[in-house]
């Protein structure tokens, strides 16, 4: 959920920098949620929070702006949403283990292709039986 809110904030402030209340209205989230998310994003370098330049009296409004890193982050997120991962972390860790197994084979002077042929011939032979 928080990633989704981060992306809503980034895509909003990328188009035009905004204050917290305005943001809260645009993305339809509670002000408190927006404030805490912005604090995290600011600490991560995704947004800058700067006082608005104004000639009005009183304390200036705090304006949220996307940083270059924030814009890159948003772009990457959008690309991933278009082409989402099919697997999860565990699937990839399993593949990493498989590769480590092959690395050990190679270290011991074994040809992975031989192992591959052996495995595939075995499976085909069982399938034909």
């Amino acid at each position, binding site marked *: 959920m928080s990633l989704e809110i981060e992306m809503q904030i980034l895509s909003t402030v990328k188009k035009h920098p905004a204050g917290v209340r305005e943001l809260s209205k645009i993305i339809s989230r509670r002000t408190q949620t927006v404030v805490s998310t912005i604090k995290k994003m600011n600490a991560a370098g995704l947004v800058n929070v700067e006082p608005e330049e104004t000639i009005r009296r009183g304390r200036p409004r705090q304006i949220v702006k996307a940083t270059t890193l924030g814009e890159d982050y948003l772009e990457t997120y959008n690309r991933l949403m*278009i082409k989402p991962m099919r697997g999860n972390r565990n699937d990839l860790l399993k593949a990493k283990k498989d590769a480590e197994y092959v690395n050990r084979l190679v270290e011991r002077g074994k040809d992975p292709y031989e192992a591959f042929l052996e495995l595939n011939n075995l499976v085909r032979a069982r399938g034909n039986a």
Partner: protein
Amino acid sequence: MSGLEETLRRIVSLLDEKRVDYMLIGGYALPHYGRVRVTLDIDIAAAIPNEEVFQALCGEAEKQGYSVYLGSYENPVCLFHDRVTGYEVEVWTRPDGVEWDHETLERRRKFGVGGVDVWVVSPEDFIVSKLARPDRGVVDEQDVKSVLERNDVKLDWRYLEERAERAGVLALLETIRGV
């Protein structure tokens, strides 16, 4: 020589005879660069320049004991059923996810398989083809991860990132690399 090796030897010999540039793609390219797993298809990308060459290849294949299915130059893939060994080979004229150009051919690598030299897609193009294929599944992402984790496979990262960027899968590649 196993049936698989014999099938490879026969199809490679046929393509060489007809002077068709080719490279092994898909699961049979995997053990050279990544993990060892079961795969059912032998996939070959063939640089067939025109209908005439395609028809000549199919004709010669029939003579040498293949039954050719979906044998049209318009199809991105056709099936060569090897009646001698009983195996099937998918011959791709326009392989999924592969940017099929001069550099792809230049970068392919030659490996000895059962006494036969076989051209295999480069690891970089293999990775991009796995990520960019429209029907990409979990297994394809695992294959990519395994290639990235092999100690003995040196990757040209500049080329890989350039191709991945062009195929719109650079972010995916970076995500898989980071796990």
